[in-house]
């Protein structure tokens, strides 16, 4: 029988649900996608070239701007790379502050990722709930770092400043202190926000219709395509760089790695992210306990004003909010990095789109983009 002609659609770069300036070319047969091709580069800001002309410390604020929704984890990855290159010992307190901040940032980033996916699926309320809770984290971060989104808080060897007084709070802080103390937020988050997500969306029949069985990703394919983070774990691979290649002080914390089923679909990716937020909250609680028990003010070692790492090379694998952040740093002994390569998880994940999308409906495309949770700032760098 004669087939109908395919319709070529240009989604983006100005489209409400491409999470920034992503352009996807889609061929449709009716409503079914037969071919998809992402086109990126609209947000390219020459991060790698720019870094070569900055000193090591000056690069830190630029790392914030790669994955701008998960700034602390990027700073952490970069600082880890430089510290490894120079062999700097980080003060214990600074390590705990870093881990706590990174995990709060992970919660924050996942909240937005989940909220944006909910918005793409038409649940506007879920999105606004995510913003409400993100706002509380931002208030906390603003008090700690002075910035709300791009912090420039971590320093090579430590952190810029200690936690302000009273921000830790006590484990009894409840919902009314959610935006004042970290304990308050964590308690509010665990007792109120997570059940709300489960009620509103995870257990919602329509939401399950829209996500279950959509874009299954077999685990071998996920590994072959370099998927990492929640996307990899949703496909049933129990792999978390915090556990499997421990860096910083993650081996001191107790937490589980949530995994999805063998053929992880959009729903698995969703559930894994929700569970990861729960685990991050657990880590934050342990860090808070330590910080409350071990007060101190040694948060950064004395370092020369201009850092000149020895000649050498380092590649750091870091479990960012969206997956494996790789920092490949080459030093020639001068004050500027000779080369910085930022292996971004979103860039790698976006390759999956042409694999996952065909055979699904146009509406699923949105769910897929939402479920792999891309940030175009990091894709294009």
């Amino acid at each position: 029988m004669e087939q109908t002609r395919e319709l070529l659609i240009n989604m983006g770069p100005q489209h409400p649900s491409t999470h920034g300036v992503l352009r996807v070319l889609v061929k449709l047969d009716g409503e079914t996608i037969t071919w998809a091709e992402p086109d990126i580069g609209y947000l390219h800001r020459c991060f790698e070239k720019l870094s070569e002309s900055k000193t090591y410390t000056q690069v830190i604020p630029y790392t914030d701007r790669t994955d701008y929704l998960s700034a602390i984890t990027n700073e952490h990855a970069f600082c880890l790379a430089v510290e490894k290159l120079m062999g700097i010992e980080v003060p214990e307190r600074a390590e705990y502050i870093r881990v706590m901040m990174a995990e709060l940032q992970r919660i924050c980033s996942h909240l937005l990722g989940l909220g944006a996916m909910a918005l793409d699926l038409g649940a506007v309320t879920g999105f606004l709930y995510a913003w409400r809770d993100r706002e509380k984290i931002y208030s906390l971060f603003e008090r700690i770092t002075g910035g709300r989104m791009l912090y420039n808080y971590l320093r090579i060897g430590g952190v810029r400043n200690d936690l302000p007084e009273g921000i830790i709070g006590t484990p009894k802080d409840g919902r009314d202190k959610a935006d004042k103390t970290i304990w308050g937020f964590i308690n509010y988050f665990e007792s109120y926000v997570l059940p709300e997500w489960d009620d509103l969306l995870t257990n919602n029949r329509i939401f399950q219709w829209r996500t279950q069985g959509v874009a299954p990703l077999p685990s071998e394919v996920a590994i072959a395509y370099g998927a990492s983070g929640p996307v990899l774990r949703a496909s049933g691979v129990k792999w978390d760089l915090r556990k499997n290649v421990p860096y910083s002080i993650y081996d001191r914390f107790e937490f589980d790695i949530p995994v999805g089923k063998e053929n992880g679909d959009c729903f698995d990716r969703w559930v894994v992210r929700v569970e990861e937020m729960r685990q991050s909250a657990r880590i934050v609680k342990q860090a808070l306990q330590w910080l409350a028990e071990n007060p101190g003010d040694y948060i950064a070692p004395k370092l020369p004003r201009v850092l000149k790492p020895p000649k050498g090379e380092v590649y750091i694998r870091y479990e960012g909010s969206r997956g494996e952040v790789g920092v490949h740093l080459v030093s020639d002994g001068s004050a500027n990095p000779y080369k910085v390569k930022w292996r971004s998880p979103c860039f790698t994940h976006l390759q999956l789109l042409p694999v996952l999308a065909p055979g699904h409906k146009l509406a699923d495309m949105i769910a897929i983009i939402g479920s792999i949770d891309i940030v175009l700032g990091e894709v294009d760098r």
Partner: protein
Amino acid sequence: MEPLDIRPDLEALKAAYPAVEIAEAATGHFDIRVSLDQYLDVVKFLKDRGFNYPACITAIDWKDRLELVLQLYKLVVGSRQSPLVMVRVDGLPREGAEVPSVTPLYPGLNWHERETYDMYGIRFQGHPDLRRILLPDNWQGGHPLLKDFEDKRPRRPRLVRHRDMIVSG
């Protein structure tokens, strides 16, 4: 969880390809220096030995030559401290370098190879779709991560606020 030991694999690699230089770097990873003609075979060998996870591929411009760096590691569930190996091909010409593509082995390196082409001008033979990725398709200005890259585009007037007048320059 036991730390993962990849030394047997590297020894087997050394045995199979004596020309390969293997060294452990101070920062924890293993450098595998191979020549261009053995590159694809070594990567195939490593993939067969279980280096299943393609982390990244990139290049370094050493001002007189280019060096291709491919980062791989073993993703084994339940393992710990899986070391990274960097397969390095040194001595590539700075213009018109051609390297066999590993995308057929590791589909996840597709875009990373495209990016390396985009930024350094290294062509990957056998790549399914070697186009510019971050820069526009019609970009003529060269490959920006080369150290001698110059932005040849006409300078845009830059508006600088200078007390009470605006100077363009």
